[in-house]
């Protein structure tokens, strides 16, 4: 099953078990979604449950907040994360805060689907990652689907749960193939150990997990060490237990992310490691992130601006050698 089909199936199943689930966004209905995630659903559930909205992101999220207040379970799609900036007032001031400000009297069972990341040559206004902003706001659950099975389970969970969730997808993953096991009971807040190892913990999420996995054989060969690879899956809250167990074993942490380095999400993970795991660490943590530049259109420059399997290998090997790993 493709990643986009897994998302489609999650929405479909949630809609079939709970008639309060509605989907809204630009082109989500008749067109089937610009990444085909909602394809076929309007034929099944009708236009009252798949709402084609105008290009008005603030209202898409704002309306979803109101729907959720009134007892629906809206799944709002933002076509591309950059456009969600127009909705950040609703995401931060409303979606994240109403429950707290109302002393729990208001509950917002809603999801904002959030495709992001560097796709292929879409230039600076279509290429960003915003997990650092989202995770800086108390009151939002932030999930990052880098894996097909996780995408299915976590999205279904997010739709049927009572908390407001921002569900991050990566635009280059929609055609990724994977197995989905619907009978599994997957905990969306638990990090996924993609590969076990004993010398270095490499933490990542979304598409970078695949890039890390591509880099690992070469890294292991060059360093003569074994890598443990962890897909965080839930960015807020973070499964620190899994990280802690891994670090106790390996004593070394690398975080690989696609976002610009300054103020990035990975900085938070590394600062946790420094604060909480200092005595388990045998080496200074390493952060591999994108350059602090707007993402350029030209393919060579674009690739030079973000981590790739090649640069991930290079940086980790260099760091490993310097730290005597």
């Amino acid at each position, binding site marked *: 099953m493709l990643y986009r089909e897994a998302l489609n199936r999650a929405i479909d199943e949630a809609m079939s078990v709970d008639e309060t689930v509605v989907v809204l966004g630009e082109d989500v209905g008749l067109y089937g979604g610009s990444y085909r995630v909602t394809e076929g659903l309007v034929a099944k559930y009708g236009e009252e449950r798949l709402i*084609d909205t105008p290009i008005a992101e603030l209202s898409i999220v704002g309306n979803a907040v109101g729907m959720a207040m009134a007892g629906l379970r809206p799944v709002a799609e933002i076509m591309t994360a950059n456009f969600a900036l127009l909705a950040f007032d609703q995401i931060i001031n409303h979606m994240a805060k109403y429950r707290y400000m109302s002393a729990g009297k208001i509950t917002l069972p809603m999801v904002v689907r959030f495709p992001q990341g560097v796709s292929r040559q879409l230039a600076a206004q279509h290429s960003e990652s915003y997990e650092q902003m989202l995770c800086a706001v108390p009151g939002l659950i932030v999930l990052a689907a880098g894996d097909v099975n996780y995408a299915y389970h976590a999205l279904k969970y997010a739709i049927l749960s009572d908390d407001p969730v921002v569900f991050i997808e990566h635009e280059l993953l929609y055609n990724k193939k994977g197995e989905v096991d619907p009978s599994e009971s997957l905990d969306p807040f638990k990090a996924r150990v993609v590969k076990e190892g004993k010398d270095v913990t490499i933490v990542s999420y979304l598409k970078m997990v695949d890039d890390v996995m591509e880099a690992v054989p070469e890294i292991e060969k060059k360093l003569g060490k074994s890598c443990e690879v962890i897909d965080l899956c839930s960015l807020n809250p973070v499964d620190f237990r899994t990280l802690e167990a891994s670090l106790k074993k390996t004593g070394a942490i690398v975080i690989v992310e696609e976002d610009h380095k300054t103020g990035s999400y990975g900085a938070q993970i590394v600062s946790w490691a420094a604060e909480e795991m200092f005595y388990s660490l045998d080496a200074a943590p390493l952060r591999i992130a994108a350059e602090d530049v707007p993402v350029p259109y030209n393919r060579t420059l674009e690739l*030079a601006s973000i981590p790739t399997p090649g640069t991930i290998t290079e940086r980790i090997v260099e760091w490993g050698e310097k730290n005597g790993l």
Partner: protein
Amino acid sequence: MNKLLAEEIYYEMVLGRLFELAAKEHYMAGDIAGFLHLDIGQEGFSVAAMKAFEKGDVFTTYREHVMAIARGMDPKAVMAELFGKATGVSRGRGGSMHLFDPSHFFYGGDAIVGGQIPNAVGCAYARKYQGRDDGVMVIFGDGATNGGAFFESLNIASTQKLPLLFVCENNGYAIGTKITRVAPFEKQAKKAEPYMVTMEVDGMDAIAVYEAVREAQHLIQSGHGPVFLEAMTCRYEGHSMSDPATYRSKEELAICKAKDPIERMEKVLTTTYGMGTEQLEALKARAQQTVDDAVAFADASAEPELKELFEDIFCKGCANV
């Protein structure tokens, strides 16, 4: 309109279409990537609006190759930008959606729907403050008239009586969504009626567009405040190269194509201005040559150097600091 101008508009329309057909071909060949939004079918509006608003600042969207060229930007540099080369107008960093040239008073190429509208309001304020009366034209699609910034801009521009021409290029669709599904009426000028003078023009008729834009520019130059012009157009292709446009019927498209702006202009040139087919063919051949040269230039140009990744983030060696 005199013959020379009519001929020039025709030439630029043909050039625009051939340019885009070449861009389409090179997209499929993998020389161009990312989002490529073709303007085919809408050249009548794009070219005539640029020619009419000759002086003054222009803000527009990602569907802007034809406008950029009609504005005077070198087709070679535009094609090179689509190819992502160092010789491109944005040195390969912007691509198809981001063509800028302040020396031609052309400010993009913005890919955030409606995002350029408040910027144009600010520019119009600055122009008024600076005592320049050319005015500012901001172009956006029908889909951009449903966002908050659009309404905020109508309000601010009208209360401040800014020399701003709002132009809605209404092709009836925002990607796959028909405008009447997300707005209560087909013509978006209605939204501006409480704020300012509104006008409508057949966007498939280049001469009519030229005259309407001239008239609107005179109005905003006279100090009476902003004007809203709506041009009804058709795009023949999908929203971008990744859109198969299955939401539109063959019949609907055929009705569009029957109004083709280039063919229409050809008729005017032959009947009103007595041009012969050889002359038209010669213009077409010249346009094709220009496009071929642009492609050859783009193809032969170098990629940007790696160090360019870090250039132009901040202003180095600019004034006053």
